Each structure stands twice: as structure tokens, then as C-alpha cells.
């Protein structure tokens, strides 16, 4: 366990950013957001960023390949570049857990090299939560927000930041700033954790449980009449999907630049009406089917294929951001409450 005083944090940032790209959450008009650190930036106090940290490994837009077309001939250009190492500083336990969810998709065979490339070079400094809020329910998915995973775990007290490396990658970065750190005591961290745990008990969603869901429950929930009322007001926008740290559906599109074709992939949302639209029909015709797909995927299909791991980390972003305040908690309570 190592530590530095909060007043010294900027020195740590400066040091890290001298060597590799460093991203920290900063406050903007649109809420907290990870930005590339430049000297003088102040780390946000916000509990979480508006967009999740998934962008680092699965950005909203990324080029897949490029093509040059001349007459009848095509030339494929591999536009991939190996990433340099970078540090994500201050991701929370829920977002870090979300990486595991994404890994199961992108690192399973065949490995998605774009994701793998970024993942390999990303070094995660995960920060324990000290002030969880009413929309938090990571607990429900077995996440301990005071014990975040990642290459380095961090705890913040009134005046200090504590660091614990969990991996070689993490060790290396801490070594980089070794001069700025001193030894820290477990005890302080433990008492900080205990305080947070007390708050967790008081949270309104502390009793939420996904036990009623999981693999093998498709038949049980698929035709539930409650989907109708749950989905009736859904706008079919992509807000929940795009702020969600675990949503990973994407679209692949071509852009004609006038002198070639860039094939890129971008986030897509199963809530969009054209998500599954084909030339001759659409298997998910109404918002009900699309809405159901999103939550069944998170609560049933994904766990079925991934040893019971749910595709939700309880970060609460969708609770805060849905234009019509419909969310996974309401879905879980409505469907689960019936049985």
C-alpha cells in the first residue's frame, strides 16, 4: 500500500503523463468526463463520469479498414496501429467490472484485435467509491465498490490517495512515481471502506437482487405481459445504451471519402428501430421487442452464455439519463416482483 497526499496528486499526474498518456475524469458543462491529462487539470470529484469508461477500449467510432477502389479492383488497407500504453485514472469498480463483461465478448474467439490492442495497452487505476448515491446498485451484481479491481486499486481519504498495485502493469506505473509516494497504512483504508459500506446499506436499491434472472430463464420472461407497459413510453433512443458501460452492440458502415472507402464501426443500439431491419422485414417490429431484447440480453441471454455473469454492473447511469426514466431497475422489479 502506497499513498500520496491529495495536494501532491497533480505531481503524480504530471509524472505519469510525462511518460505515457494519462486520462483523468474532469468536470465539464456536460458532467464529468475522462480527458487526456494536461498539466493543471483538476480531477473531478463526481462519483462517476457521464459516459462510461468503455470508450477507452470500445470507442464510439473506430476505423476497421480502408479500401481503395479502382475500376474493378479493390485494395484493402489495414489501418490498424498498435496503441501506446495509456493510463485510465479513477475508473470506478462498476466500470472496471464492465471491462470483464466486454472482455467476454471481444476477447472470445475470434479475438477482436481492435479491442484487444487497446485493452492490452490500457492500465487501469481504479478508485474505490466513498460516496455512492441513490442510483447505485452495483452491490446487486456482487461488486464491492470499495474494492475495485484493475491494475492499481485506489482509495481516497480526506487528504490522501492510497494506491495498491494488482498487476505488473500497475507496479510499473507506481514505480514511475515512486518518489512521490510514501508507504500507506491498510488501517486507514479499511476504516474508509467501512464508512462507505455503512452508506451502501442505506441506499434505496441496496436490496435489489438479480437472483430471479440468469441463464435458462428465457421461457419464463420472454412472453411476460409486463413488457408491454414497461416499453410503451420508450422513445427508442440510444441514451441507455450509449451511457451503459456494458452495452457493446455495434454497426459496421462504409464511408466514401471521395478518394477511397473507410470501413468503420460505431456504437449501435438494439433500441433503434432499424437495428435488425433487413431488406425484407424486421424480426423486432415494435419497440416492445427491441426493449425486451436489451433487458433479456443483460439479464438472461448474456448470463446464459457467460457462466451467470450479468451484463449490468449497477452503475446507475441509465437511471439518471433515460429521458423517460425507464430503466433496468424498474424492469427487474416489475418482472422479478411477479414470481
Amino acid at each position: 500500500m502506497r499513498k500520496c497526499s491529495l495536494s501532491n496528486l497533480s505531481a503524480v499526474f504530471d509524472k505519469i503523463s510525462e511518460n505515457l498518456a494519462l486520462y483523468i475524469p474532469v468536470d465539464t458543462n456536460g458532467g464529468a468526463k475522462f480527458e487526456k491529462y494536461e498539466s493543471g487539470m483538476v480531477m473531478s470529484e463526481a462519483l462517476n463520469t457521464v459516459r462510461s469508461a468503455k470508450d477507452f477500449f470500445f470507442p464510439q467510432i473506430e476505423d476497421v479498414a480502408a479500401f481503395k477502389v479502382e475500376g474493378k479492383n479493390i485494395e484493402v488497407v489495414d489501418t490498424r496501429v498498435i496503441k501506446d500504453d495509456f493510463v485510465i485514472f479513477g475508473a470506478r469498480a462498476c466500470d472496471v467490472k464492465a471491462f470483464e463483461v466486454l472482455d467476454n465478448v471481444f476477447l472470445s474467439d475470434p479475438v477482436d484485435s481492435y479491442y484487444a490492442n487497446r485493452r492490452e495497452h490500457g492500465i487501469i487505476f481504479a478508485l474505490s467509491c466513498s460516496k455512492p448515491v441513490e442510483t447505485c446498485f452495483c452491490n446487486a451484481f456482487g461488486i464491492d465498490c470499495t474494492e475495485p479491481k484493475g491494475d492499481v486499486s485506489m482509495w481516497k481519504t480526506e487528504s490522501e490517495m492510497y494506491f495498491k498495485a494488482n498487476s505488473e502493469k500497475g507496479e510499473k506505473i507506481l514505480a514511475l512515481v515512486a518518489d512521490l509516494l510514501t508507504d500507506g497504512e491498510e488501517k486507514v483504508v479499511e476504516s474508509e471502506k467501512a464508512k462507505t459500506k455503512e452508506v451502501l446499506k442505506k441506499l434505496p436499491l441496496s436490496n435489489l437482487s438479480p437472483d430471479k434472472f440468469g441463464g435458462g430463464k428465457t421461457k419464463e420472461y420472454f412472453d411476460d405481459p409486463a413488457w408491454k407497459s414497461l416499453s410503451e413510453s420508450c422513445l427508442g433512443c440510444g441514451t441507455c445504451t450509449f451511457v451503459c458501460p456494458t452495452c457493446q452492440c455495434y454497426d459496421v458502415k462504409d464511408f466514401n471519402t471521395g478518394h477511397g472507402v473507410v470501413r468503420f464501426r460505431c456504437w449501435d443500439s438494439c433500441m433503434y428501430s432499424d437495428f435488425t431491419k433487413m431488406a425484407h422485414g424486421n424480426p423486432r417490429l415494435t419497440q416492445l421487442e427491441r426493449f425486451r431484447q436489451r433487458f433479456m440480453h443483460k439479464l438472461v441471454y448474456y448470463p446464459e452464455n457467460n457462466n451467470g455473469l450479468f451484463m449490468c454492473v449497477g452503475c446507475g447511469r441509465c437511471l439518471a439519463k433515460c429521458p423517460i426514466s425507464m430503466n433496468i431497475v424498474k424492469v427487474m422489479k416489475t418482472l422479478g416482483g411477479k414470481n
Partner: protein
Amino acid sequence: MQRIGVFVCWCGSNIAGTVDVQAVAEALKTEPGVVFSTNYQYMCSQAGQDIMKQAIKEHNLTGVVVCSCSPRMHETTFRKTAAAAGLNPYMVEIANIREQCSWVHKDMPTGTEKAIILGKAAIAKVNLNTPLTPGESPVTKRALVIGGGIAGIQTALDIADAGFEVDIVEKKPTIGGKMAQIDKTFPTLDCAACILTPKMVDVAQNEKIRIFSYAEVTDVKGFVGNFTATIKKKARYVKEDVCTGCGICTEKCPQKKVPNEFNLGMDNRRAVYIPFAQAVPKVATIDPDHCTMLKTGKCGVCAKVCTAGAIDYTQKDEFIEENYGAIVVATGYNPISMDKFDEFAYNQSKDVITSLEYERLMNAAGPTAGKLLRPSDGKHPHTIVFVQCVGSRCSACDEKGKEYCSKICCMYTAKHAMLTRDKYPDTDVYVFYIDVRTPGKSFDEFYRRAVEDYGVHYIKGMVGKVMPEGDQLKVRASDLLANKQINIDADLVVLAAAIEPDKSARPLATMLTASMDTNDFFTEAHPKLRPVESPTAGVFLSGACQGPRDIPETVAQAGAAASKVIGLLAKDKLTCNPCVASSNEIMCNGCSSCANVCPYGAITYVEKEFRQPDRTTLVRRVASVNEAVCQGCGCCTVVCPSGAMDLKGFANNQIMSEVDAICK
């Protein structure tokens, strides 16, 4: 994928002088879709055209790009060439490398580079061209003239003269319009009735012309060549075909106190009446608002005295539907109401009258049998004040008047002044004016005669107030030239009221989807080049419904409108411009934006059933373009937020592909 042939023209040295045509043809060879590319001295020559024809056949071309002079010059030529070789003419695009390239740029590299880019843009467009076929629609060989004044009469006569059937719809019981009420005409001072009534008789006797008098157009559907109009023939309670026009009923009718509108209410008529002696059709009409029989069921005098048995109290409004190929609007004008012009005391004194009322006072068939007598006491007036521009040429912020010049007032006032002085030399005549406008043949001479020969007092200035006092009218005015106030004790004040379009014009315009200006005058398709056509195809304008005008102008325009109608009716079929808007009904929201901006009324809305993906059907309101009416401006395509409306020949993707090619 198209198979495009590119033909680069040298135009002698006109193009080849600054553009390396060989290089252009070579560079365009590798563009997408291009399978053939060549250059030639004069593409428009017979030999050049033959090269194109041969290439189209030999290479199975589906599209052609000609890099040459302006499409305004030879687009038609090359389209015809392509058509002759079996290619759809609308698969031809021109890259203008002469007027917009070789002629405006000096050096060869620059010109060549630009010519290549222009060629690429044309190729990009042709790649997205689709064959277009002009639609055809039949023409109903009959015209409808709405309004039976001199404008309508002249138009109808001219059209009938060319051998086409014409229907005149007149809302009054007789045709003749305003001209029938006028006494003399400027600048020749011949009697209006003498020149108008023979024309009215011609109309009545013309086999090709039907008159629907006492009738209104209540609905118009369709489009150029194919209009269907509904005409409401109001019940006149007199069988038109039986009535001989003898006039006995109008003498015996006990209801004598009906204000006579023909004389502008200055005398009375009976409840059954013939507006004036030379009315056409000369048929009596019962005024249902005043007829005791119709109101109470008691009377029946007219029926008793009618030897022909023409009276029919049970008559109902009759609706007639008729097809027309062309419609002429000749709804005319009216003097504006003087209600708002309190300063002239029009409502306070009977001796303040409008010019049209003055016409009637001067007319031998008028309320005073042509003697100039004051309406109030029947005395002969000695001092008469004419006020010009009452309600004309007002500032835009002035709520009661019109901004425009009514055009005819200067001349008729000069006429009135002159006639008055001529008939009654003992009168003093004053004319207050802002400007005297006399641009017309013999007009200024006429006006000067009034001043110089007849001693009319023309005073530049406006009348501020007219105050009735005793049996006189105190007129307070300013003389701008002398820069002083003038007070005149007048016996009669005549107001040259502004004229405005007839009130029936606006609802009619809506029916016809013809556009109007803010003053409710019909707008012309082009103010200079198409002055007698409405922007709505097949609708033509005659007379003062389009703007203030005098009789000769009206007659000239009436003839012009007739000739346009004849030109249209002479065709058996109309070929439509194929570059028209078309709406993708699947995407259309039915919001009406497109219909709102369409200058031609080409867009209508239909309720259409759509099959939903879930196999149910849904009725939606969607836009539908009448290709015979659309002129292809494309205005609708931009207001359509969903992009459902597109323009054939200049489609969104075609224009964007040109943009792309240019910016590449």
C-alpha cells in the same frame, strides 16, 4: 451500373484553344461507369451526332456525357440525337466546358483541369440518372371564363371565334360588368353602352358561348387541360328559356322600394327586375330578399301578369358540373368602401359621392335621366370638387387605403370634369390631385384639354376635410403649389375611390390554387414574360382581377389571354415536363409544407392505405404530385424534412454526387 459514353467537343478552337480536349477525354475514360470516351471537332455537327449515335449502339451506352458548350445551347440537340439512337433523352448530361470554362479561363492547364472536373461531375450525375418519359394528358376543348365584364366578354368572343366552346359565369343577372355602368369612355368620349352592348349581343348570339348569369363557380378540381368546375346557378325564379324580357312584371310588381344596385342605390327598382334595358340575357330576376311572394307566400302579381308563364316560385339553385381545358379569371374590380374615410363625410352627406355614382348621375339611363342633380335635394350643383387618390397610394402603415395607384382615376376624373364643364358651363369644377398620371395614347392631351379648354381648376394638394354645413359642403384643402390653405364651399364632392379586386377573387384563387398578391390581385406567371397567365397552368388572367387597368388595356389583355387559351385548346394532348417532383409515399408525413410552397398548386393530399410490417393496414395522408401541373422548380424538396419529396432529373443524390465530384 451505367455504361456511359463521353464526347468531348473541340468547338473548333473555342474549346480546344484553352482546353486539351484529348487529355480530357483520356482522363474521363477511367471514371466509374465510363466505357467509351472520345473527342471531336464539332459534336453538334451532323458528323458529330453520328459519332454519338454510333457509339450508343456499338457500346450499348446507357448514358451520355457531352463536354461542350452550354446546355442552354445544345442540350436539346444532343438529347434528340440520343433519342434517335434509341437512348432515353434524359440520360444525356452536358458538361459546360465552353462558356463556363474555355471562354473564361486563359491558360491550357487550368482550363483542362477544370474541364476534367466538370466532366467528372456530369458523369457522376449520369451515373444516377434514370430514364424519364414525359407524361401526356388530354385537353378538354372548352374554356371557362369567370366574370362577364368587358374582360370576360372579349376573352370569350375571341376564344369562340377560334372555334372553341366557352362558358361565361357571371354572378350578376346580366353580363356587362362595370363598363355597362359607365357613361362615356376616355379619351374619345364615346358612349360606353354604344360600344359594349353590341358585344354583349354578340356573346348572346354566339353558338359557341354559353352564359351562366346569376351564377357562381363553387368548386374547381383538376389541372391544366382537365379542369372540372361546379357552377351554381342561383334560382332567379324566372324560367330563363321562357321569359321574353318584355318587362311587364317589373312594372307591375308591387314591391317598389328595392334599392337599385345598377344605379348604386341612388334610385329604386322592383323585387322582380331586369338590371338595365340592354341586359344579356334579357331575363327578369326575382330578388328573393324582397319578393313578398317568396317571403310570405302572398302576392303572385308577376306570375299573373306574365303572359309567357315564365315565373316559377319553386325554382331551386342548380349545380352544374362541366369539364374545361382552360380557365380565364376575369373577376374585375370594385371601388373600395368609403366607410373608413370619415374625413370626406361620405356617410354624412348624400352629396359626397364616388366617381362611379357620378357616372350614373351623368348617364341618360341613370337615376336622374342624365341630368346632373344633387342626390340630396335634386338641385343643380354649381361648385363641384373632385378628390383624387381616395384610398390609393396610401402608405403601407395606413390601414384604410391601398398602397398601389388605381391607375384609372386620373383619366376618368378629367373626363368627368370636362363633361361637366361641357354640359354645364355654369359650374365651377375643382380637382384635387397628388400627381396627374396620364401615360396612355392621347391621355395627356385629354387632360390638358380639360385644364386649358374647359377651365377645370386642377389643384395639387389633398383635401383635408369635408364638412356638411347647411346645404353646402365646406371643403378644406391645401394647395401645395401656392402653399396655402383653401376653403371651398361646394355643392357636390366626388371621390375618386381606389379600386380593389372583387371579393369573390380570393375564394376563387383558393379553388384554383392560383396565387394572389397581398392586395388580392391575381399574380401572373411572370410579370414581364407571361403577364396573362397565372402560375397555375391552365389558368389565365384577364382584366382588372390582375391589377388596375383601363378599358383598352383590359381588352388587349383579354385578347392576349384568349390567344393563350386558344394555343392550349388547339393541342390534343399536353406533354408534361418529366423533370417533376415526386413524393415517396412511404416516407411522406403529410405535413403539407410542400403544398404550401408549391407555386402551381401541383401538390394535393390523399388518404392512402399502407400495409404495416405487422400486416395491419394504416391510412395515412400523403402528398401526391400532379405531374401535368408541376413545373419542376424543386422548392418542395427542400421544405420536406423527411426527404420524401425529390425532383426527377435533379434528384438529391444527383446533385450531391455532382458536389462530391467537384470537391474530390
